[in-house]
């Protein structure tokens, strides 16, 4: 048993932490919050050059072949911002989808370009009239002579505006297993993308109007079993997202503790009041729950032990912990916390965005129970 990060992981942690302080401090993040893209293109290029999009890509496809835990260490630091953007959508989900289900030719086509950031792939699963789950994927891919014809709308697509390609979950048969994945170039005529307004961080709606793609758009050799692929990918990816949320919670704790020392009301630092202490203790407990569940799942998966139930638990715990930690931060900061220029609401928004992202806590708690074989 050893619960410490390796030397390499500590070096990664330092590097990303320095980068975040220099390139994405709070005032910069505040100034980007209204922009169309989660990460400014110049910053995106810098991150790509540092190799952060290649972490999970094997060396034979131009990547660095890092472990899930190494990758999570990067995302934990990004979460502290929170820095949004397709580093996750493309560098983790996109890369893992191609690696897991792609043919050899597809791996050679996609992985190196995902790794350099030249192609940015995001996943589109949810539909307007249906909840999360395989039953909710109804968009039909109609067979044509040359491939497939697509019609319909996908919602809650992360970084849809910034992505160059969309990996689309579609129905190729009515069979429960009849879900397949199609690559769609966003420049294709008939595709429109817009960010959702309101309380979201960079989640988009993608509309496909009479879009035709070739058979080579199909991820993998054959149609079907698309949900199983997603399931395998999520098992690995969700605890990385958990680490991102744990990092966000840690940053919120530090902000709140600092405020509890410096903000004076009734003649004393507000942290002298046990009511305020209770808010911060809630945060610390939530942060640690998110951190340890995520890293235990990652450690199991990296060492080849079963980690499915742990990964699903980590997702549920992290989603709830982030919302809880933000709510407590709003209690600590009171009025000023609600000013979008202050920076707290970057987290508040992100915590809500990630709550149901790729399935909500209740969904994953139930999958956890199934995975435990109850």
């Amino acid at each position: 048993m050893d619960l410490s990060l390796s030397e390499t992981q500590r070096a990664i942690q330092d590097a990303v932490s320095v980068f975040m302080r220099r390139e994405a401090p709070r005032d910069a993040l505040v100034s980007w919050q209204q922009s169309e893209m989660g990460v400014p293109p110049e910053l995106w290029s810098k991150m790509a050059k540092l190799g952060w999009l290649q972490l999970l890509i094997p060396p034979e496809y131009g990547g660095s072949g890092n472990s899930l835990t190494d990758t999570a260490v990067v995302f934990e630091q990004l979460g502290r911002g929170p820095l949004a953007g397709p580093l996750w959508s493309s560098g983790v989900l996109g890369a893992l989808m191609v690696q897991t289900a792609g043919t050899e030719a597809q791996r050679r086509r996609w992985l190196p370009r995902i790794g350099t950031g030249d192609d940015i792939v995001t996943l589109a699963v949810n539909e307007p009239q249906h909840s999360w789950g395989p039953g909710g994927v109804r968009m039909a891919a109609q067979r044509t002579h040359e491939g497939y014809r697509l019609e319909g709308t996908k919602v809650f697509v992360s970084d849809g505006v910034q992505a160059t390609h969309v990996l689309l979950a579609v129905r190729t048969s009515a069979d429960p297993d009849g879900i397949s994945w199609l690559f769609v170039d966003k420049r294709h005529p008939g595709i429109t993308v817009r960010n959702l307004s309101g309380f979201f961080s960079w989640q988009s709606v993608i509309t496909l109007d009479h879009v035709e793609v070739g058979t080579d758009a199909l991820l993998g050799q054959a149609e079907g079993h698309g949900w199983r692929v997603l399931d395998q990918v999520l098992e690995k990816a969700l605890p990385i997202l958990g680490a991102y949320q744990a990092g966000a919670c840690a940053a919120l704790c530090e902000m709140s503790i600092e405020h509890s020392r410096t903000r004076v009301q009734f003649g004393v630092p507000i942290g002298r009041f046990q009511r305020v202490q209770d808010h911060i203790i809630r945060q610390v407990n939530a942060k640690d729950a998110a951190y340890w569940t995520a890293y235990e799942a990652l450690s199991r998966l990296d060492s080849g032990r079963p980690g499915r139930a742990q990964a699903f638990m980590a997702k549920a715990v992290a989603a709830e912990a982030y919302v809880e930690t933000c709510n407590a931060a709003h209690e600590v900061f009171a009025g000023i916390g609600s000013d979008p220029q202050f920076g707290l609401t970057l987290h508040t928004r992100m915590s809500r965005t990630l709550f149901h992202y790729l399935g909500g806590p209740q969904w994953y708690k139930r999958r956890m129970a199934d995975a435990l074989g109850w």
Partner: protein
Amino acid sequence: MDFEVSYTPEQEQFRIEVRRWFAKHVPPGLGQTPASPEASYENYLQRRTLGRELGARGWLYPMAPKAYGGGGLDVDHAIILEEEANRLHLSLPPYYDSGGRLGSAAILVWGTEAQKRTFLPPIFTGKVRTWQLLTEPEAGSDLANVQMTAVRDQDHYILDGQKIFVGSDHGTDWLWTLAVTAPQAPRHHNLGWFMVDAHLPGITIRPQNMLSARGEGDTDYGHKNTVFFDHVRVPCEALIGGENEGWKVATTHLELEHGGGGAVGRPRVWDHLLRYCQETERDGKPLIQDPDVRDRLTEIYMRLEIGRLFNLRNFWLTYTHQPRSYEGPQASYHHKMTGLWMTRQILEALGPWALTNDPVLGMADGLLELQQREGIVAVHPGGTADIQCVIMARRIGIGRDDREQAGTVL
């Protein structure tokens, strides 16, 4: 990172040796809950015998230093011993010896060499069992507000006062306690920490009933005790850590009691709860298939898992000698609040059956009914849940620049 305790071939060989020894020395059914108070006493005597046999091999306190009668083993061997004991529904020591566990840790840190040689071997070899005496009628959450007095009389101290919520059933050999040695001195600098023979004249131990109090062998008809000291003469050698330094000594065992030492493993009640829900049919189908029951079980499982991870982290921090801060009271707080919250979850999910230990209607041999009571009672010993939060806040440095340090435990 690696969250699994893994074993070398030498350690696996040790496990086989331990298992064989246990098979030979543990009387059949010792780990089972005794069916009556009389049977509980018989069971307790057998456990004490086993304790002395374990102690002779250094397996009762496996990690305690050899020089004082402990096993001198490393943490991996200690976990193997604990796991093998757990297989037989026992722990180490196999009887309630919280005073020995916490008190020996305090003596190891703060005792003189002579005191270590006097007090530690009987504890580590199982000759004595020890209770801790901390709470008083006027010293609850404010534990330092001790009223019991210790007045020096040549080479003795004379102890007078009362301690409450003490020990378990079947009595004790030794006890230790805090008493005021300097009434005029400021708080935390006015106390002495004494190791006392429980059979000294002037000590009276009276049973004190509680809503729940686990007895030896996990019976639920155990009790706590009130201990009266009436002019009890204690030799000066019993004062650990020096005159007026009792609070400093207490920081060690309080840290351990607040969860700072950590633990490996999951609470037993979970296995009983899951098995009950899998094996029991209600309205014609297993409880676990009821969506509401299933959802509540997932919530319970998750909170227990988070508690397990907190304990595992604390265990790792302690045995790799890393700095600790708020982690002990955090684990303690989580444990206490989870237990209380579970009473409600189990009551809602399983219905009024949760409230009886009736041999037919009760659930899991009455263990779930016991949880209904114990979840409430357990919020308070070893520092209330609120006190755990107070300690966390000081150590995190909420509203203050100076952070309180965690107590020394190793």
